[in-house]
Structure formats: structure tokens, C-alpha cells
């Protein structure tokens, strides 16, 4: 059906206004078949609105959505091969678990027997066979979440939309369910679009992530890309923790940048980023785990001396807060690879230490 090279889902310059307020701003993105694609962003950035436009509950103010090559403009929600798992689960309170799961099948032309076996299959998939005849208020939150998933999958949608599917679960259950979701996705091959405001969840679940801010898509990429190569301060800040300093670009060499970073008290070598020019103001950002800490001066560039101001022992790693001569505090993580407890750590309070990082670990942003 789809033309060669045509992505499974193509969102083309979608905007949505509520009165004068623009909730979604000119979003374009493609999703491939069988992908788990996440929409990640803070509260109110338009994730749900975008999802609702895909499901057909809201009409885009401008722009188009193509699913499997078909223009979705004006197609009613009940005619779309798209199912949604609601944030509140939205189970039918007056129907049993199996009736809930089988509801969508009413509209399929198949024998009653086939429908029953399909419901059974879904119950097995989400491991709820013993609960088939219970009502939604007679099962736990995690089980409700699985009923909602099974109900959305029962009609074999081409595209499944999940709005904060795990938000209502506690941490333990959430982690387990994340893997369950991934394995269900692999077994069914359905394309997933997952909305979340939890960056860790997005990183674990997704093949690709779109980071959103105030209705705009800031960056699209694999979890590794958005984490290691953020294209803006917003994305760098939003995903993981990061320390950033104002910098000035001194020189562009082959594949390398030389920057002046007053906060660190010296010059920094970093990997070249296209689109920057000499003399330009920029931002240097470094992930805490990329900062190394040592008693002796390490080899190579990008090493700065400071004093340990504070440290915290977390078991698997330690967090050091080092104050530099400029008065700036930087954070560095060190993994506690050897088993010596507090005695084996690299440095102690008020020790003079070196912090350093590889030129390839430095992120330079043109903002």
C-alpha cells in the first residue's frame, strides 16, 4: 500500500491552536513500522494533544497525518486503525475484564468462537486469565493497566498510542512493566508511540525519542543520540543531569575546537560541532559521569584543579562536589569498583584533586 520509502507514520507540519493558544507548533516526524517511538517532554508541552490528533479526537489546525500512506484528515476516530491506551486507563466500569478486552471485537466480522479465542489469547498475553470475570474495580492498578493494554491490542491496531502508560504504577511495578511492554511489542510487532515525561522510561523503552518543549519538537534521535549529542541546552538539561558553563570559541582546528571557559579557569579542547564560528559565544556542557576525578594530574588536555567540598557515598557510586578556584562547583560521579567501603574512595573532604574529561566527552552548544 505504502509507496516505497514512505514511512509508516508521517506527521507533516502539524499545528494545533486552542483559541489563541498554540499547544503544538509545526511538528513533523516519521515513525517506522514496528518501532517504539517516545514523545518526551515536561508537563503541558503538548504530548497528549499530539496523541489525540493521531487518534482523531482533535483535528489539527494545520498540517497532515499520513498513516501507511493514507491521509488521516477528516477520518473519524472509529474508522482509524489506531488504538489508544488512556492515561487513566478508561476501562468500562460496568463490564468484566473479558468484556472490556473484547469490546472492540464487536466491530470485527468474525465468528463468536474466534472472538472468544482472541480474548483468551489477549488474557494470556497480559497474564490475566484468572481475573477474566472480575470488574475493573475488583482488580489492582497494575492489573487495570494490563487490561487497558490488552483491550487496545485486541483488534490488532496498526498503531498503538500509549499516554503515560506507567505513570500510575509504583517504581518497582513500573520497571517490571516496562520490560513487559517491550516484550509484548516485540511479540505483536505493533508500532508503539509512547508519551512520557519520565526520561529514564523513554530511554529504556524506546527505539527513538522526540524531545518536546512548549509544543515544539526539539530533537529526534535514538536514546544514545539525544543523551550523548543533545542539540540544545533544553535537551541536554532535560535528559539526564548535566553541568554547563559559558564558553567562547577561540579556534577551530581539524575536527577540534579550542574554547576559553573562564569558569573552569582555562582552555578546553572539544570535538568540533558544525555551524560554529570562531569568536562565537557558546555553552560547554559535561555529563557528571564523564568527569574523572584523581589525586594526580592526569595525562592530556582538559584537566583542572579543585578542592573536594562535599561527597556522598551511594553504594554503587560516589558523588563528589568539587569547588574550582573560580568559585564554581562541579559534580563528578566515580564508580566504586573495588570493595573497600568509605576507606577506598578516591578522595576525601578538603583534598586537592584534579578533575578532567576527554575532548570527545565535551558537548558544545551554540546557545
Amino acid at each position, binding site marked *: 500500500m505504502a509507496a516505497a520509502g514512505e514511512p509508516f507514520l508521517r506527521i507533516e507540519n502539524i499545528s494545533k491552536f486552542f483559541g489563541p493558544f498554540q499547544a503544538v507548533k509545526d511538528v513533523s516526524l516519521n515513525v517506522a513500522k514496528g518501532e517504539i517511538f517516545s514523545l518526551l517532554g515536561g508537563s503541558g508541552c503538548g504530548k497528549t494533544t499530539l496523541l489525540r490528533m493521531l*487518534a*482523531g*479526537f482533535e483535528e489539527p489546525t494545520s498540517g497532515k497525518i499520513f498513516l501507511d500512506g493514507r491521509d488521516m484528515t477528516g477520518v473519524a*476516530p*472509529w474508522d482509524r486503525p*489506531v*488504538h*489508544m491506551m*488512556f*492515561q*487513566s486507563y*478508561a*476501562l*468500562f*466500569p*460496568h463490564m468484566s475484564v473479558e468484556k472490556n478486552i473484547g*469490546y*472492540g471485537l*464487536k*466491530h470485527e466480522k468474525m465468528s463468536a468462537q474466534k472472538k472468544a479465542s482472541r480474548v483468551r489469547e489477549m488474557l494470556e498475553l497480559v497474564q490475566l486469565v484468572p481475573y477474566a470475570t*472480575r*470488574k475493573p*474495580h*475488583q*482488580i*489492582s492498578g*497494575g*492489573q487495570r493497566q494490563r487490561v487497558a493494554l490488552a*483491550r*487496545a491490542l485486541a*483488534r490488532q491496531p496498526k498503531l498503538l498510542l500509549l499516554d503515560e502508560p506507567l505513570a500510575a504504577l509504583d517504581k518497582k511495578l513500573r520497571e517490571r512493566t516496562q520490560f513487559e511492554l517491550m516484550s509484548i511489542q516485540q511479540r505483536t510487532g505493533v508500532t508503539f508511540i509512547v508519551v512520557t515525561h519520565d526520561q529514564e522510561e523513554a530511554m529504556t523503552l524506546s527505539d527513538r525519542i522526540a524531545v518536546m518543549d512548549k509544543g515544539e519538537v526539539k530533537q529526534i534521535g535514538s536514546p544514545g543520540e539525544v543523551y550523548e549529542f543533545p542539540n540544545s541546552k533544553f535537551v541536554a538539561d532535560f535528559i539526564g543531569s548535566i553541568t554547563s558553563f559559558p564558553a567562547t570559541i577561540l579556534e577551530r582546528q581539524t575536527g577540534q575546537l579550542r574554547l576559553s571557559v573562564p569558569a573552569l579557569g582555562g582552555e578546553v579542547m572539544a570535538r568540533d560541532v558544525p555551524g560554529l564560528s570562531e569568536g562565537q559565544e557558546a555553552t560547554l556542557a559535561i555529563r557528571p559521569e564523564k568527569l574523572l576525578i584523581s589525586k594526580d594530574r592526569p595525562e592530556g588536555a582538559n584537566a583542572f584543579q579543585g578542592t573536594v567540598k562535599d561527597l556522598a557515598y551511594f553504594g554503587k557510586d560516589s558523588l563528589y562536589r568539587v569547588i574550582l578556584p573560580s568559585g564554581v562547583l562541579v559534580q563528578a560521579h566515580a564508580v566504586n569498583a573495588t570493595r573497600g567501603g568509605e576507606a577506598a574512595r578516591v578522595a576525601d573532604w578538603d583534598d586537592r584533586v584534579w578533575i578532567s574529561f576527554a575532548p570527545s566527552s565535551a558537548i558544545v552548544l551554540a546557545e
Partner: protein
Amino acid sequence: MKRRHTFLVSMLGFGFAFFYIPILSMIVYSFNESRLASVWGGFSTKWYVSLFSNKQVIDALILSLEIALVSASIATILGTMAGIALARFTKFRGRLLFSGLVTAPLIMPEVITGISSLMFFILMAQWIGWPAQRGFTTVTLAHITFSMVFVTTIVQARMLQSDRSIEEAAMDLGSRPWEVLRDVTLPVISPAVMSGWLLAFTISLDDVVITSFTTGPGSTTLPLLIWSKVKLGVTPDINALATLMVGIVAIGVVIAGIFMNRAEHRRQRDEQMAFRANG
């Protein structure tokens, strides 16, 4: 603090006494042997016996029940539709006007509603020759128009409470709007619809004012009969008749109460069980 507490409790006591003592004394005196309403002459059920052998009373009772059944049922259908529309379609042309029109009879004095209904029927009779005679149909129509408002209010409140997304979920799973209404919306709000019906039924059953404006010769409802008899003095058989009406209404309210209470209890118990089993 303590004194204020006593004050509030005694005020509450006075309030209840003011409301219930007349009803209780009416019930007690309906079992009075004596003909005189104010003198106690011993226990007897003879007024009830005479009541049930009185054709006038039986006819009035049947007419009242018929009107209440028909008007409550139609009012429930119309009121439910209006309630759903008001709760779900938040943006349509003239919504404010519609919602005002729907709820106006709630605060309109009954006399006004009665007179305007009467005027309407008279004008209709002049223009299109219908209704030729006032009676069952006209009273029922008038009851529908004003009891429908109560159903609308109850249903609208229930709809505003219920989660919009379950309707969207049904739509998302392939159901057209009318299927969503049938499969999800109506079953979920059915307790509210039931209590709306019950309210409409009791309102119709004990209405005097609007009925007296819209009824015609030969169509006397039970409250109208009581009213006309009282004009000749309060006799024990009227007490008996009124007690019967209180009984009918009370039984209805109690049944509805038990019904809703039990559903709520069951839901709470099940929820607790689910959490204990999986917590």
C-alpha cells in the same frame, strides 16, 4: 463551644419536629375511630376500608398513578437526552440559551408554569383544534415539561462527574457515537437516570398546582381529590388517604436508597478486597 453545640442540636431538633410531627399526627389520626378529627376515639382501620370501597378515590388513585408513570417515563427520556447534551457538547450555538431554558422551570413559581401551560393548551385548541378537552393528556404533558428539568439536572451532574475518556475509549475501539451512548454512557449513568425517574414520578404524583390548572372535568387526581375534600373539613378518611400517599412515596424513596446504598457498598468492598489481594 459546648453551648453552641447544644444550640445547633436543639435547632435541628425543632426543625425536624416542625416537619415530621404534623405528618406523624396525620398518620396516627388516620387510625382514629372517632369521626371528629381532633378527638381520639380508639384504634380502627375503618377509614381505610371505606376508602377502598369508594370508587371516586380508587379512580383518582389510578389516574394519578397513570399520569405519574407516563409523565415520569417520558420526562426521563427527554431529560436524560438534555442532560447528556448539556454535559457533553460544551460548545454549540445557543448552548447558554438552551441551558437557561431547560433549568428555568426549576425556579419558576408553579403558578406561573401552571398558567402558562393552561394558556398554551387554550391557544392550541383554538388554532389546531387540539386538545379539544383537557384531562389526562394535558396534565401529563404539563407534568413532563416541569419534571423533566429535575431529571436533566441530576443526569447532567452525573455526566460531569464521569470520566469523559471512557466514552472516547469506546469511540477509539470502533464505536460510532450512538453505539457509545448505548454501550457505555447510558449503563454508566443508569443509577442517576433511575433516581431521576423516581423523582419525576413522586413530583407528578403529589402535584396540585399545575394539575389543577391543566386538568378538565372528570379527570381528578388523588391530590386534587384530597384538596377538594379538605375544603369541606378534615375528616379521618382524608388522613387515611394522605397516609397512603406518604406510604407510596416513602416506599419508593426507601427502595431507591437501599438500591443505591448497596451498589456503593459492594463497590467499596470489592475495591478493598482487590487492594488487599494485590497490595
